[in-house]
Each structure stands twice: as C-alpha cells, then as structure tokens.
C-alpha cells in the first residue's frame, strides 16, 4: 500500500512538472478567436475547407511560437449552414469563450444574421461569405469585414475583358438560386457602365438536366457572347450544351468555375471557356514577381500535403480572415477596438489569397476587379489571358 502511494507520488510529480514545462513554453495566456463555419448542411462544401484551413493555420502559428508568445486558440463552432444556429453559436463564443474576434460564417444569410449581434457586442467579425450587403452600407457595418471578392468585381472583370474584345451584346443564363440571382442583378446593373446590352436573359433550376432550349434562344437573339452564372453541375451542363450546339460565340463563366473538377467533367467541351478566377487556382501560372505567388504556393502545397485535396477558393477566404486577425493581434494586442481600427486603417496593399486587400472606412472588403485574372481553358488546363 505504502509503496503504491509512493509510486503514485512520483508519477504525479513527474506529470505536474511536465505540465509546468508546457505552461512555461507558453507562459502567456492564449488569444482566442471564434470560427463560425458551415461544417455540415447544404453549405458544407464551403465550411469543410474553411475548417481545415483554420486547424492548419492554428498548428502552424503555434509551432512557430504563437503570436508574440501567445498561443492562438481558434474555437470552431459548426453552424450547420443555418442562421439560427449561427446566432446561438455566436452568443456562446462571445459570452462563454470571450473571444476577441470571430471569423465566418460561411454563407451570406448567416453573416447578415450576425451583423446586429456583432455590432452590439462591439467585436470584429471577418465574414467568409461574398454577398455585398454584408459590408454595405459601411457606416452601419462598423465591426463587420469580409474577405471574398464582390460578385460585382467578377462582373466588371468579365465586361472589361469583353469590351477589349469588341463584344457589346451578351446573353446571360443564370441558376435560380441565391448565387445566380445575385449574379444576374450584378450583370444587369453594371452592363450600362461598360456599354453592354443584355439581349437575352435565361434561367434554369439547380437540378435541371438540359439547357439546350435556353441556349438556343440566346443563339437566335444575336448575342455575341454567353455568360453563365452558377455553381455546381449546372455550369458543366451549360458548357456541354454550348459545345454540342456549336454556338459560334464564346462562353464566359462566373468566378464559381475555378475548380479543376469542372474541366474534368466537361472534357473537351470546356476548351475555350473564359472565366474571371481568383489567383489561388492559377498560382503556378503567375510570374514570380507577383506579390501573392509565394503565399499562394505555400498555402496550396501545405493544404494538399495535409488534406490530400484542393483547398479551393473557399479555404482561401478562411486563410485571409484568420491571417488578417493574426496580423492585427501581433501589432495591437488583445483589444477589440484596436483590432477593428487596425483592420480598417492598416490593411493596405496586404497580399492574401483573394487578392491585394486595401481596406478603408467605406470599404470593409478591400478587393476590386483586379483581384481576378481572366482565365481560359486550354488543353485541359487553365491559361492566363492578357
């Protein structure tokens, strides 16, 4: 009996001293950031790479000594792609975990639900969703930021390129989801600025199997180009139909086209399809002088080594959100107001995966059409257009 308790004593001392050593290594208290991500539910294709990115960055930062000696702790909550659940999780993060800032949520709807909560809690939110209303109007979005590019920037990139090609009449075809409707609105409202006329405007459902009819209408409308705005299988079916119809006019896709999987699925039909893409998917085609190249290369390669899959644009949004906060924490420490001010005033010429960010009082996203490269599919691979 006595020997047993003696042994116990020795073991406890050993364990305790190991613990103390660990604590000594990170003597300072951790910086806590919340992450609200749609890990499950219909938007899980967004939340999954975002979660993976958050876990990877947390490990990388803590392995290299944390933020000024403070370990970074990212508390991930699954929002299940649902607004109510996002709000409840946000309250938990703010009240129980006392986080300094929150990244996410993954979708525009969830982000909008959090706007009043974050403004009341006076805590910065860096959303990973694209919708323009998340950060506009800027004076009502004091604590809110976002990292994905605006839809309107993608439209401007397309129209800008078309103008150079001498195209002025376009037919648009959009999917009947939030993404497609937002794209359609942007396409219509920006058209006059670039002297574009929309001569045909078609729609299809997310589970439709054939868009030949819609494309035939665009063909006879006299359009000089087709623009398809969708994510998911629809963009591949449109591409295949466009190819089968031999339409004789170029097909442009939205920034949702940026996955190698789409080229694989569409096969030779994808040849010649043009799209505005973030530089993340074409990092290996960029010149070495590009300020984004080094970080894109490191992020993509690290991610692929760890998870055996493409990070995609969405993982990149989480990367940008987290790294901005880490940057702010490094410079101003754990003060919510100072973090916010730093984000608004000091994120200038800041290279991220989504582009070169330039935040300002009136723009809490900081990206414009220059965040995109016009990319054409050539021999089954991306190729940059000049």
């Amino acid at each position, binding site marked *: 009996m006595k020997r047993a308790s003696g042994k116990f004593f020795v073991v406890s001392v050993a364990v305790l001293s190991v613990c103390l050593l660990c604590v000594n290594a990170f003597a300072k208290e951790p910086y806590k950031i919340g992450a609200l991500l749609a890990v499950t539910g219909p938007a*899980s*294709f967004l939340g999954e790479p975002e979660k993976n990115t958050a876990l990877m960055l947390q490990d990388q930062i803590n392995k290299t000594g944390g933020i000024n000696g403070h370990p970074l702790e990212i508390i991930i909550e699954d929002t299940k792609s649902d607004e109510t659940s996002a709000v409840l999780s946000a309250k938990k993060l703010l009240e129980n975990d006392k986080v300094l800032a929150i990244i996410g949520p993954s979708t525009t709807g969830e982000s909008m639900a959090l706007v009043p909560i974050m403004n009341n809690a006076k805590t910065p939110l860096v959303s990973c969703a694209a919708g323009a209303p998340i950060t506009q109007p800027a004076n009502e979005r004091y604590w809110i930021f976002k990292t994905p590019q605006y839809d309107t920037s993608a439209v401007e990139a397309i129209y800008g390129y078309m103008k150079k090609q001498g195209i002025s009449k376009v037919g648009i*075809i959009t999917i*009947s989801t939030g993404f497609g409707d937002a794209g359609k609105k942007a396409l219509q409202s920006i058209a006059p600025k670039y002297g574009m006329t929309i001569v045909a405007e*078609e*729609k*299809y*459902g997310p*589970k*439709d*199997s*054939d868009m*030949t*009819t*819609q494309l*035939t*209408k665009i063909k*006879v409308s006299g359009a000089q180009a087709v623009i398809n705005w969708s994510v*998911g*299988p629809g963009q*591949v*079916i449109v591409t*295949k139909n466009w190819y*089968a*119809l*031999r339409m004789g006019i170029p097909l442009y896709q939205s920034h949702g086209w940026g996955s190698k*999987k789409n080229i694989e*699925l569409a*096969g030779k039909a994808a040849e010649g399809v043009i799209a505005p893409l973030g530089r993340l998917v074409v990092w290996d085609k960029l010149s070495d002088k590009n300020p984004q190249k080094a970080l894109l290369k490191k992020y993509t390669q690290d991610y692929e080594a760890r998870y055996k899959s493409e990070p995609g644009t969405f993982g990149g949004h989480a990367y940008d959100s987290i790294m901005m906060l880490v940057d702010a924490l490094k410079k101003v420490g754990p003060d919510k107001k100072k973090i916010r001010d730093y984000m608004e005033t000091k994120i200038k010429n800041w290279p991220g995966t989504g582009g070169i960010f330039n935040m300002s009082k009136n723009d809490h996203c900081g990206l414009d059409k220059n965040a995109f490269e016009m990319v054409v599919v050539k021999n089954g691979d991306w190729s940059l257009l000049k």
Partner: protein
Amino acid sequence: MLTVFLQFLFSGLTVGAVYALVAIGFNITYNATSIINLAQGEFVVIGGLMMWFFSESLKLPFFVSVALTIITAGIVGLLMERLTIKPLKNADLLLMIMITIAVSIVLRGILMLSFGKEPYVYPAFTEGEPVNVYGAIIQQQALWVIGITGFCIVVLFLFFKKTMMGKAMLACAVNPTAAKLVGINVSQMVMFSFVLSAIVGAIGGMAITPISLMEYDKGPMLAVKGFCAAIMGGLGSNRGAVLGGFLIGVLESMTAGYIHSGSKDAVALVILLLILFLKPSGLFVSKTMLQLRKF
C-alpha cells in the same frame, strides 16, 4: 423558325424520355401492389452512379458495366422489397408509401457517403458529331436516350401482354386473393415488380448521365417529375405514363423557349392541374377503373 422549334422539341423529348421511364417505374410497382414507390428517383441515380463506378472507376468494358449496373439496381430493388415492404404485408397503404420515402432518404445517404456530393459523368455511348436535322442540332446521346426509352416501352408492353409472368403480375394487381387462389405466388410477383421498376429506373439513369451528369441528390426532382407524368397519363396506365413523360418534357422546353425559362416548371404543373380538374383519372384511365383503385 422551324430550326428553333425542332431544337426545343428534341430538348424536351430527351428530358421527357427520362420522366417517362420514371413514370413507368411508378406504374410497375403501383400495378402490382398499389404502393407508390417514392424511391423511384433514387433508382435512376443508382443507375448513373453505378455505371460510372463500373465503367470509369473499375474500367470494365461497356456491356459488362451495363449488365453489372442492372444487376446492382435489381438487387437494391429486391432488398428494398424484402426488408421493408414484405415484413409489413398487411400494413396500411399510406404507411407503406411513407416507408418508401424513408428508403429513399436512406439510399440518398448511402449514395452520398459512398460517392460524395460531386457530380459524375462518363463519355456518351457513341462519340461523334451531333446530328443535324433541318438545322437543329441533336447530341447523339439524346438519340440514345430516346431510343432506349422506346425499346424499354416495347419490351415492357410485350412482357405484360405476351408472357405468363407479366400476365401473372397484372393478375396480382387486379385481385391478389383471386391470383393466389389460381396458384400465383403473389409475394414473389410483388418482389419482382420492385426489381423490375428498379431496373427500368437504372436504365434511364445510365442513358441520361452523359448529358445531364449525375449526383447523389438528383432523385427527388426526378421522382416528382416522373410522378407528375404518371398522374397526367393516369396512374397504372403505361401508355399514359409514356405520353405524360414526353408531354411534360416538351411542355417544359416549349415554355422555356416561347414564354420564359424562369416559368417552365410552373407552366408544366399548371397544365397538370388543368388535366386533373377536367379528367381526374388522368388521360388514359377510365372512371370505372378509378373506382377500383385503393389509392
């Protein structure tokens, strides 16, 4: 103008062919059991995804893949009947229909876990230039879809009219007790009807996937459209199902073409409602037959 019209027509016929096959699938189980099997859409998905698995992933020859896909779909239909329908032989019909919804959810879950959420595709059955009919361009695969549907319709017609087994299945539908008395194994016929409907659905899935791609959750949409087609033609009538399927497909395409693509689903459903108001039994089912129905 003719060119454009033909283009719309062929697009509608291609999509309608699959609706027709799904509608026939509904009829086969309905005729033998009075059950509306709402997992019918999942059979189409199984057809497309398993064909991809055998031909693209395992790289088996075309005809071997087709045979294996049909066998797999048949086994799924068989298991479904033996595990969920048979144990509840005398249960309420509505309950049975709810069980088929449960089965469809389970099947979708299994498909999602094994294939993931991405769409799949394999090359068309014959490679080559699309066919040009008066300026309208038709993909070769679209002709395959329409042709295969036609072939299935003829084979099923002969099966039900000319073979003993087909006639026995029809007998079960008309009066299970009497069928039993003359020595027909009713339970076996019910099982066979599920197998057959699964195979018909899977054939549709195999044919359409090169055109429309296939992903795990395409089933419910196909089931709804196929069900509309079956109702439009009159539940239980295969002639009606075929006509209903093509009619809905063409109506959708024409609405998208001549009115607006945003309203195509709505117009097809409005016409379905009109038909049901004017002729509640559907286009090809008489009033007396309607009275004999249990559901």
